[in-house]
């Protein structure tokens, strides 16, 4: 296993370095001079001295290779510089918004798993029945529905329902309160966004569970279990589902990293001040330091998630680490 871990770490490093190089190059492809954009945002005129000073401040007057080494070194120290828009350290900006996004991501994962595994397994066991068709349509619907539209519609439903039942319309709170301070207010804020993001996540995982279950149900050991007279419930729970969950675990891990993409849009719908919304604001305000830090953060989360998923997979299925 240690050998496998070592080999996987060796793959993670070039991927992260490559991603850093790509982000570095992309941000330098921005048309025009970053300093002209920065100084021009105030609307006044600026002299070449101010531009040169800005170049020196950002360190872009030095050779590109040195700039790249500096960029990677700063990233390793979690020093992303200051936001070009607010002037605050990028780490502070991200740190302040991380808990809300992280909570929605975890809640969405819990909701997705709670829906996907039982429904996916049921769909496979009841293959080609009306239950199967219903579950499949539900899953395909989840993949086709944009999360932001689902968010708007769910808000509309909550608004009309509370208005009809209680007389006054109710909207989920938008201010973040830690769960240990006010659990009800916290969940009232996070639940709808988590369901909105979790639906697509559940749909993808449900399809994978169904497909993996169908494959496993055709295996010889399932036939053997049936031949020796084992009851269906035991065959499904103990033999089929356990083995079918391997690819599902992988998918759940990968999709967790993709949740960040979903959050970018969902936080906008629910007016939540999370990392996703910060990203959109950074792009809108042409805040390149913040944008590059957020892209690198997302990629790192994705690569690290993939790494742990691979380790988990290798731990669960010894054939992987010995191949």
């Amino acid at each position, binding site marked *: 296993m240690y050998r496998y871990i070592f080999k996987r770490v060796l*793959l993670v490093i*070039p*991927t992260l370095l*490559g*991603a850093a*190089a*790509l*982000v570095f190059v*992309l*941000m330098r*492809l*921005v*048309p025009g001079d970053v300093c002209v954009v920065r100084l021009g945002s105030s609307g006044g005129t600026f002299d070449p001295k101010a531009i040169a000073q800005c170049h020196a401040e950002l360190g872009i007057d030095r050779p590109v290779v040195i700039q790249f080494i500096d960029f990677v070194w700063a990233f390793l120290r979690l020093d992303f510089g200051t936001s070009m828009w607010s002037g605050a350290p990028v780490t502070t900006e991200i740190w302040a918004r991380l808990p809300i996004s992280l909570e929605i991501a975890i809640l969405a994962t819990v909701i997705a798993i709670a829906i996907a595994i039982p429904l996916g397994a049921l769909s496979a066991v009841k*293959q080609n029945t009306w239950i199967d068709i219903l579950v499949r349509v539900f899953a*395909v*619907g989840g*993949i*086709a*529905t*944009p999360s*932001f*539209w689902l968010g*708007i*519609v769910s*808000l*509309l439903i909550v*608004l*009309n329902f509370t208005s009809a039942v209680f007389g006054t*319309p109710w909207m989920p709170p938008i201010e973040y309160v830690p769960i240990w301070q006010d659990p009800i207010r916290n969940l009232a804020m996070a639940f709808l966004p988590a369901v909105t993001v979790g639906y697509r996540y559940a749909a993808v995982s449900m399809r994978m569970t169904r*497909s993996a279950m*169908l494959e496993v149900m055709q295996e010889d050991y399932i036939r053997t279990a049936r031949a020796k007279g084992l009851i269906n419930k035991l065959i499904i729970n103990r033999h089929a589902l356990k083995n079918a969950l391997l690819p599902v675990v992988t998918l759940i891990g990968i999709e967790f*990293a*993709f949740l*960040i*993409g*979903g959050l*970018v*849009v969902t936080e*906008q*719908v629910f007016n939540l001040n999370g990392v996703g919304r910060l*990203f*959109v604001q*950074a*792009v*809108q305000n*042409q805040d*390149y330091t913040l*944008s590059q830090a957020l*892209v690198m953060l*997302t*990629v790192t989360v*994705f*690569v690290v998630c*993939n790494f742990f998923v691979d380790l988990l997979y290798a731990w669960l299925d010894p054939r992987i680490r010995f191949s």
Partner: protein
Amino acid sequence: MVTTTRTLEISPDDVVVSRAPWTRRLLAFFRRESLGTFGLVLMLAMTATGLSAELIAPYNPTANDFGAMMDAPSWAHPLGTDQFGRDLLSRIIYGARTALIVGLSSALVGGVVGLILGVGSAYFGGRTDLILQRVFDVLMAFPLIIMALAVVAIFGTGVQNVIIAITIPLIPRCARVVRASALAIREVPYVDAARALGYGHTRIILFHMVPNVMAPFLIMVTAFVGQAVLAEASLSYLGLGVQEPVPAWGLMLQGGAEEYAATAPWIAIFPGVAIVLSVLGVNLFGDALRDTLDPKLRHR
């Protein structure tokens, strides 16, 4: 000496499978894949709507009518009007064209570039394959919407830039899948035969390998159309995609849709339904195509 004669029995079904005309195979697809057929109908409806927008849209999609702001659905405006009095049905019809342009261009360009890189990577193998695979690893570490946002941050908004932003992340995804199929084809004797005949790399890749990876390629491209339509809608909703006055479904859900959701819910509902139906159509057709082209999944 006893002589035995054996007759080769060929069932009519065998002949049908191998030599059936495309019309009969299409009919068999319709019979077997009812959900896929429904998806195809939705896709064709979206395409026809987008292509004939000028002919079927009852109003100019960008014309404001301040006397009919936020009108509920009626005979005059079947899907109602938005906060500027623009006819929603006309905007949705023209929005189909935008979705079609972005969806098809991104999927086709991303798919074709991915196809060439994937097959090339498998064909050349060795160091070329190793380098390309690491590049794909890096590109695939960026979730689609994040990569698209990064590209928009650099090149700016607008239809063309949105197409570029969505195309780039699709390339490695297609290349990965196609490469896996092409690796198996590389070992097949006819590729060796082509090499022995002195054919060039381009000819072998384009005429001998590419046609044989068409099944996974078509499945991927179909899935990409749906993903691209969703990504375009998301970017436009964020205000970073298609810009006003171009009618686009995601853009229609921005601003007014949320603000007036309680008083004029049709502004929020109908553009979303259009997105769901079009992506649903593409996905259902893609699933059916996969089941048809991949025999292992046919009976599932």
